[in-house]
């Protein structure tokens, strides 16, 4: 219904350069995804609030400055930052109609994302090895929930990105795959923004 209505309306508005109801539907879908990102912001907001309130309640366990090892975290930060840039380059290639470039930059982004997850998982494993488990203290519960939720988002994004590369190979750049690439690149930039605040509030303020 919405599709039909949009088509009729855009005809009435006299758009003569060839985008009809299908285009408006894709634009609307992208808008819907933006609204999801805003709600995701609120989810992370609650987790940040929890962490900030609880970060001094270490219950005799390790504190932030004893636990965090900055070299790995700094590497994660620059890896994610670069991957946000490369996902932008993928969108640029798409806008030029360059499918190989698009898939290539998405692959680079996914590899950087996988490196980020690898570093994070090894960091978590090392911390658990040292006895800093999620059940050790309120500080660590808040920490693993906040940082783990971000890591989970990145992992989901990775699977999604790989699936999208297969779709692009099969269907090429259509109005549907175009919207999907725009949406995943928004998602990836959003995850980078969340990480900036994890890096600042959890790690930098934890070790200073």
């Amino acid at each position, binding site marked *: 219904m*919405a599709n039909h*209505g*949009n088509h009729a*309306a855009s005809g009435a*508005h006299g758009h003569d*350069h060839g*985008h009809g109801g*299908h*285009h*408006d539907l*894709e*634009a*609307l879908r*992208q*808008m819907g995804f*933006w*609204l999801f990102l*805003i709600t995701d*912001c*609120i989810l*992370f*907001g*609650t987790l*940040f*609030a*929890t962490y*900030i*309130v609880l970060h001094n309640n270490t219950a005799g366990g390790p504190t932030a400055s004893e636990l965090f090892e*900055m070299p790995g975290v700094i590497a994660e930060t*620059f890896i994610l*930052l*670069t991957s*946000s*840039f490369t996902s*932008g*380059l993928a*969108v*640029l290639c798409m*806008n*030029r*109609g360059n499918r190989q470039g698009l898939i290539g930059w998405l692959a680079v982004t996914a590899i950087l994302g996988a490196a980020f997850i690898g570093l994070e998982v090894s960091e978590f494993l090392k911390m658990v090895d040292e006895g800093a488990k999620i059940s050790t203290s309120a500080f660590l519960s808040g920490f693993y929930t906040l940082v783990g939720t971000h890591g989970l988002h990145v992992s989901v994004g990775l699977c999604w990105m790989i699936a999208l590369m297969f779709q692009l190979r099969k269907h090429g*750049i259509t*109005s549907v795959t*175009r*919207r999907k690439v*725009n949406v995943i690149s*928004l998602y990836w*930039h*959003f995850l*980078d*923004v969340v990480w*900036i*605040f994890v*890096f*600042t*509030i959890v790690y*930098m*303020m934890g*070790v*200073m």
Partner: protein
Amino acid sequence: MAQHPTGHSHDAHAHGDSHESHGSLKSYVIGFVLSLVLTIIPLVAVLNDMVEGTAARVLLLVTAVLQFVVQLFFFMHLREEKKPRWNLMALILGLVIVLTIVIGSIWIMTYNKVA
């Protein structure tokens, strides 16, 4: 509905002017360089103890917020959105809720320590 609800309305153009509404290589490179600078400044200043205490916290938060703005403008193209700016409206609503939750929690819990 038909009034192009998002600023990315021109995406579906197959060729031609589509890159105008989705940034150029230049804007992405500027955004990336700014992000790198805004990450390196607090790293160097705080880890070398050039600033401490409240000043360090302020520096960290200011550079983080600036980097958020850089991502919004240079990577997420918020500035290029056409009117009506639904994306911006939704973002402002979300930020109001997030800030209320975070600052409200800190405020309440600071005075919750009954000794």
